[in-house]
């Protein structure tokens, strides 16, 4: 019996998904009894990140109906008529943009959580910089070179890419569909993801189609190289195998090419159901930078933003239907994020300028449904520079997902998030079971550098294995600053050990980067004082 079936079967249906005598369902599900019976395999858990490029206008996405009159003062030219706002079950004060019928239905079915006013202190209004902040999970004034998801994958699979793929992890750790591998998937040393730059190239790959080349000597050689490139794509065969395992998907998807996000999510569902053990998928949809003509004049429920939200909603709904159709609903959680929200006050060109906090959607069968946080407060009189303050730090969202969905022990979160963040009820409790999988992942691949003890205070031993020739170990702090090069010279093949002393370094995460010939590997070290 599947875990969810068990819960369904043993709890009176009327009690789901609401409260049991005042105790929320999540408390019930988190009880030791349920935990021991629900032998969830954490490898199953997949996270899908949907990036809304451009800065989504949160106030016209999740609409605070109790602020409606003030909202009408601030943005009358793009305001959604209150009678057309989609009401959310369980609340009368918050609704959705009328284009979001699919997500609306999912919310009412208990498969969507809305987190209000997510952002970070000292909002940066540059698309690029704010995107990087969201990808790296840095402070506003801090520049990090690795991504939060990349750091997680590096924590879980520390030897990657040396000795990968392997039986424990035969598949890509992360897949980005629709663009190049993003900063979010950048680990401390290597990129932890692979990119399928567009759905066409995915279909070409699984169908063995090579782009046409001219009928010239150059074209002939190009075709040769492309053929080898396709054959030697490290994960081509496993991706191909997974894709080929699934021949029928839910009919809910719109026709191919009409909704690029739906096309991307359809690939994700196919690969997850086809058996890939890939943990993180990133997809994206652009165009949210709606400085003008966000809504049509005189018809605020249509226009650019309505089209984008309709695509988002339609894609997520079809994807969720497909997860159910493919029987993998239990395994997938998704979220949406955008580099910032938009200004409260609209501008004269029927648009909105760069803003601050905005809502996030999390979706999936295992999310904590409902609305987290309160409606943003809209002042009576809004100036052009007024922004929504954040209620939740986006890094709290990441950290909570890492802990409750990827089952990272709270003690280890610092390794990844580089700081302590508030724990939020985003994912239902009780999905993390003790398994030996984390240890298997730790050991998978080829370990070239390690240190003991770790964490350490005064000093630690660093052990490294070389294949001869020049060896290098550099110690970086979490912002990528080189603080020490304890090894830089020729070492004979074999295992070596050095003593590394804490020369008054502050507490925190450090990276020991090992380089020997063409291989490199990074080890996290934690200094505690």
């Amino acid at each position, binding site marked *: 019996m599947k875990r969810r079936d068990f819960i369904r079967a043993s709890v009176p249906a009327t009690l789901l998904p609401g409260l049991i005598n005042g105790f929320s369902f999540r408390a019930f599900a988190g009880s030791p009894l349920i935990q021991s019976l629900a032998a969830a395999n954490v490898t199953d858990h997949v996270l899908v990140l949907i990036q809304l490029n451009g800065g989504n206008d949160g106030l016209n996405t999740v609409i605070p109906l109790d602020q409606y009159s003030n909202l009408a003062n601030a943005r009358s030219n793009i305001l959604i008529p209150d009678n057309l706002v989609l009401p959310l079950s369980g609340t009368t004060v918050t609704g959705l943009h009328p284009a979001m019928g699919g997500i609306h239905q999912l919310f009412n079915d208990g498969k969507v959580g809305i987190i209000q006013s997510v952002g970070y202190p000292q909002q940066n209004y540059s698309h690029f910089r704010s995107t990087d902040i969201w990808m790296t999970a840095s402070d506003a004034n801090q520049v990090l070179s690795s991504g939060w998801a990349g750091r997680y994958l590096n924590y879980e699979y520390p030897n990657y890419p040396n000795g990968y793929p392997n039986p424990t992890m035969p598949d890509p750790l992360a897949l980005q569909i629709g663009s190049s591998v993003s900063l979010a998937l950048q680990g401390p040393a290597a990129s932890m993801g692979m990119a399928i730059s567009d759905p066409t190239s995915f279909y070409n790959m699984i169908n063995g189609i090579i782009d046409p080349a001219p009928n010239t000597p150059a074209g002939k*050689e190009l075709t040769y190289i492309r053929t080898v490139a396709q054959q030697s794509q490290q994960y081509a065969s496993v991706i191909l195998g997974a894709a080929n395992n699934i021949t029928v998907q839910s009919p809910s998807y719109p026709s191919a090419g009409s909704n690029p996000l739906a096309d991307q999510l359809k690939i994700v569902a196919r690969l997850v159901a086809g058996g890939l053990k890939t943990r993180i998928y990133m997809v994206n949809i652009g165009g949210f930078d709606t400085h003008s003509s966000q809504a049509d004049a005189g018809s605020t429920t249509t226009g650019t933003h309505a089209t984008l939200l309709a695509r988002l909603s339609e894609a997520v709904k079809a994807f969720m239907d497909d997860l159910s159709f493919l029987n993998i609903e239990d395994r997938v959680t998704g979220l949406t994020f955008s580099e910032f929200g938009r200004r409260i006050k609209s501008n004269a060109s029927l648009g909105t300028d760069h803003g601050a906090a905005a809502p996030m959607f999390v979706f999936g069968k295992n999310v904590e449904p409902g609305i987290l946080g309160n409606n943003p407060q809209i002042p009576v009189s809004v100036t052009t520079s007024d922004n929504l303050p954040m209620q939740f730090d986006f890094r709290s969202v990441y950290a909570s997902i890492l802990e409750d969905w990827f089952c990272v022990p709270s003690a280890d979160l610092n390794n990844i998030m580089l700081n302590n963040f508030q724990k939020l009820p985003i994912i239902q409790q009780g999905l993390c079971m003790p398994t030996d999988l984390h240890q298997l992942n730790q050991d998978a691949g080829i370990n070239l550098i390690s240190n003991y003890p770790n964490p350490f205070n005064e000093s630690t031993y660093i052990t490294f294995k070389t294949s001869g020739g020049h060896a290098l170990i550099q110690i970086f702090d979490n912002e990528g600053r080189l603080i020490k090069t304890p090894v*830089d010279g020729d070492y004979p093949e074999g295992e070596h050990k050095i003593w590394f002393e804490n020369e008054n370094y502050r507490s925190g995460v450090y990276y020991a980067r090992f380089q020997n010939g063409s291989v490199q590997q990074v080890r996290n070290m934690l200094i505690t004082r």
Partner: protein
Amino acid sequence: MDRREFITQAIPERRQKQDFSGMARTITGLSPYTGPWTINEVRHLLKRTMFGASIPDMQYFLSLNTSSSVAELLEQINHPPYNPPQPPLNNYDATSPDANCPFGQAWPGTPDTLAPVSTVGARRRSLKSWWIGLQLNQSRSLREKMVLFWHNHFVVELDTISVGTYNYKYNELLRLHALGNFKTLVREITTNSTMLKYLNGEQNTAAAPNENYARELQELFTVGKNANGTPPYTEDDVIAAARVLTGWRNDLSGGVNSANGFNSYFDPSRHDSGNKQFSTYYNNTVITGRSGAAGATETDDLLDMIFQKDDVALNLCRKLYKFFIYYEIDAAAENDVIQPLANIFRNSNYEIAPVLSALFNSEHFFDFLNMGCLIKGPLDTCIGLLREFNVQFPSASDLAAQYAQWDRMRSQGSTLQQNLGNPPNVAGWPAYYQEPLFHELWINSDTLPKRNQFTDRILTSGYTNLGTTIKVDVLSYTASLTNPGDPLQLIEEVLALHYSIDVSVNVRNHLLSILLSGQALNSYWTTAWDDYTGDPTNTSYATIVRTRLETFYKYILSLSEYQLS
């Protein structure tokens, strides 16, 4: 992976013979090219004749015309008379103390030190590193590419030679004659100490002839084999040539010291002084046997006889063609290019420059169909990238690090199956001769991902050694372009600089989406770039453009198109 394994892995079973039927082919010959002189022609000329086409070199040659560009590359104008580079230095004292040569001094000409640590391996590495350094720092000349060509032609596997100075003198010889006279080069290489060791010439005596060099001299170095793979000469010709060459030796075979400056010499007592009869292929020539010191002159007679054969010039011209143009020589190219080139070669008494001048000035060379069809070799890939992106190496004042980084790139070439100084065997690297795949042998499921790993790494973490890091500085490289703040212009310029063939609209759109991080407005990139150039010390501004540029260049250098020149 050993060479055999590499070759078997590289040849797909599905294709035993290349099929060129139906493909557009050239009809041009050696008439001088008179067409436009644009970035396309300059890039084509430089990528083929040098290691990569750097921006300053492209700008320089764009200001010349075709013929003066070729003349300059052949060092016929704007070059001082050839002066050998400073020899390799002792960079290895820290690990292999050298009693015969102090740190920082040139070791060629001094004996190897054998104890407490032998310097033989360290000197070999020093030589190869230095050679990489010469490629990286080449002048606007064809010479370094030709040194590689001759190294692949007159192969010596340096790792089999345990006298440092011998190896140096072999390299010195190739470089000296790289653009000179082919017949002179063959004469010199025949009695070069390194070659005498490598192909056993020093063991070739009247009492115990060794035919190794006599065979390769004909089969590989001069007349070559017929199209069907059979030699035109006979086995008896090999035996007769070996007898002619008896008596050459090194003064201390296998030793490390030299009484006479590491030169070979002729030992009449080991020479076969009988007459040598050759086959009808050589018009039944008899080389009259001579005793005493005069026996050495038989070697000149032998080469005179061989160089009477038309096959010598044809063999060399075909090899040059495959190295510089394309590996497929169809009937038109044979008739309109190879045959006339061979005539030029013979008529100039085997001067190399007139042949190369005719080839690189020709309509055929600049034929659209000959552009972008050459798969870059590993060294062309590595050294070319480092030069094109102006990657900075440690200066001579940090000698150990400078050599270490040069060695790192030598090792990178080796990872991609081209270890400078060590071709896999006497025939050279298979990609230059192995039918039917030729250059396609460079690219297989092992080496292609490694090419991408190299380009990724040189763009990101780089290679660190002895406290120095070599990597592409994407910010300064991009700043050197015409108008990097305009993303469309940036894309077009980078494509024009690095690609020999055009790419699709999809690729351009994808490149744009990288620069814009998926945003819709080009001005976002412009703003980011202007923010950075307005305040270059602002880490946040620099990081924003750097991360996007790294991804941008990684993508460009990872596409199949990038492997072609």
